[in-house]
């Protein structure tokens, strides 16, 4: 039993529990969370379209606030502070969550993250050749996409819609293509989010992208790690507050780290920077999901660490590495 007790096993249990809470929570806790919490949402893909979920995703209020509130600064000469109040509250909740968990939301709680990892496990068990680490070139090309999605689909297009430059379909364009919307609703048996709209070209394009992207994400997840996470707008939003996060990935290995690259191989987000030597440095990258796999797969004592405030809560070790690689072999069969 002890053999199976790894960080990843613990993570799976927490992910599963979180999945149940985020997707079915309102069925279980008919209390606080079933209320209208749009301005107090988690920075999470726990979708507001899912009527049974335990909380809401922060992206939907952000888009709505841009469309309906922030735009009023331009259209009705509304004062800046009242118009921004909703957005500030939403960002405030995001900041509090980042303070407590930093980016561990992704690695430990996100329903879409867990969904992709589960499909990845199925792919492995089906014997599909896993792609492993993507090339630096590919990674460098992909990384900016999430910023474009965040800036344009979550902020700028909804704002332009509110001002009146664009049609209503651009009011929440990110939700319109979000794979979590289709996944979480389908998980509760509600297939109404699977559709192609013929209302106008904008709706048509967005619904087509959404469905293609969803299908593509599922197929890719069978052999590529975390395919959607690489372009997910939650990452840029978290990065805005990354500095205040109490939980962080700290590297302490200028002497003992020999840049073996094990950590990069283990990293589902292919963050190649983590193998560079660093002394007592916070190396939590914008793409990091704080999954802790790099700690598990680093063969040296104390090089890779999770720190919470001043306290080290987990460190890489020879022993841990041996145990983890053994389990990995067993799992891959």
């Amino acid at each position, binding site marked *: 039993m002890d053999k199976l007790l790894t960080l990843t096993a613990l993570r799976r249990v927490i992910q599963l529990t979180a999945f149940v809470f985020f997707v079915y929570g309102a069925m279980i806790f008919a209390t606080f969370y079933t209320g*209208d919490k749009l301005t107090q949402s988690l920075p999470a893909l726990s979708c507001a379209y899912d009527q049974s979920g335990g909380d809401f995703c922060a992206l939907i209020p952000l888009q709505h606030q841009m469309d309906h509130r922030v735009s009023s600064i331009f259209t009705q000469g509304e004062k800046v502070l009242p118009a921004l109040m909703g957005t500030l509250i939403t960002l405030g909740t995001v900041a509090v969550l980042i303070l407590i968990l930093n980016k561990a939301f992704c690695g430990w709680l996100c329903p879409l993250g867990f969904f992709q990892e589960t499909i990845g496990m199925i792919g492995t068990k089906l014997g*599909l*050749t896993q792609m492993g680490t993507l090339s630096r070139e590919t990674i460098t090309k992909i990384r900016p996409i999430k910023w474009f999605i965040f800036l344009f689909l979550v902020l700028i297009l909804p704002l332009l819609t509110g001002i009146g430059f664009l049609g209503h379909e651009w009011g929440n364009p990110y939700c319109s293509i979000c794979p979590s919307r289709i996944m979480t609703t389908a998980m509760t048996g509600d297939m109404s989010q699977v559709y192609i*709209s013929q*209302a106008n070209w904008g709706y048509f394009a967005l*619904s087509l992208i959404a469905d293609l992207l969803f*299908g*593509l994400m599922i*197929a890719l997840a069978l052999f590529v790690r975390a395919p959607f996470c690489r372009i997910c707008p939650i990452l840029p939003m978290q990065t805005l507050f990354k500095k205040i996060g109490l939980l962080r990935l700290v590297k302490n290995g200028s002497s003992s780290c020999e840049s073996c690259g094990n950590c990069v191989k283990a990293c589902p987000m292919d963050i190649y920077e983590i193998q560079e030597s660093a002394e007592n440095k916070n190396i939590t990258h914008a793409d990091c999901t704080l999954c802790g796999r790099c700690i598990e797969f680093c063969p040296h004592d104390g090089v890779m660490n999770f720190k919470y405030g001043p306290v080290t809560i987990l460190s890489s070790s020879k022993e841990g590495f041996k145990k983890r690689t053994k389990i990995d072999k067993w799992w891959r069969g």
Partner: protein
Amino acid sequence: MKKAVLTLIAAATLWGYGDGAVYWAPHGCDEGKAAASKHGGHGKGESAMFALMNRDGNASAQLILPDLSAKPLSFKRNTVMLPKPPMGGYYAVVAEGNGTNTVFSAVRYLSLQGRPSKISPTKLTALSKSVLEIVPDPLHREHDRYTASKSYRFVLRFHDQVLANTAVSLQTHNTPAQTVTTDGAGKFTITLPDDFKNVRIGRSENKPSEFLLTAQYREGETLYQSSLSMPYSLNPNDYWQSQSYGAGAIFIGFLGGIFLYRRSKTKGAKRG
């Protein structure tokens, strides 16, 4: 506007909409209604005026706020004007009254914007508002709205106890009354009819319609009657959205991914 009201009245007479039941209807000539239908579900521009149809002389009305406090409402003829909402969340408009050997009540929920009240709408629905009461189980969320072709559950309560095996009637302006019966736990499920006329493309182009649930229960000499009336919107999946095309597009996306898998394998084989 007059025309619309007349058509409404004509339609009501044709089907006998409401059938003499006491129920709340949004006041026809309210500007806010149009705005509400443009951005439904958020209570933006939600009607501030409601008429108690088939009102009897002694009915009294109150507004229950999201924090569960109550404010009395006064009638002007058969309409009430809601005060400016002091907070955001779900409100219930409740009317109660009695006639000879009858006790009637009418309930309607609405969601209004403002500073969130931090109290779950399930507390508002759970709160006893009348002797006989039809309760949404649960009330749809802020981002949702009652929609045609979708099913919704309700509970029938009498003196705070569930009422099993009792008939409840559902009707809309375009579909005559149909009856459902509550189960052993007092629950029943209805599917809202897809009965919109002159549908135009785009959700915001179509005004919501109204559905009405009514129930009655006799105890001794007294007949208790209660209604719940709410707006519902058309379901785009019944008109300009195709679910089978959607499923097809997902499948094509999936095939694209499989194609990439095969390509990655051949590349991998070449490399190694």
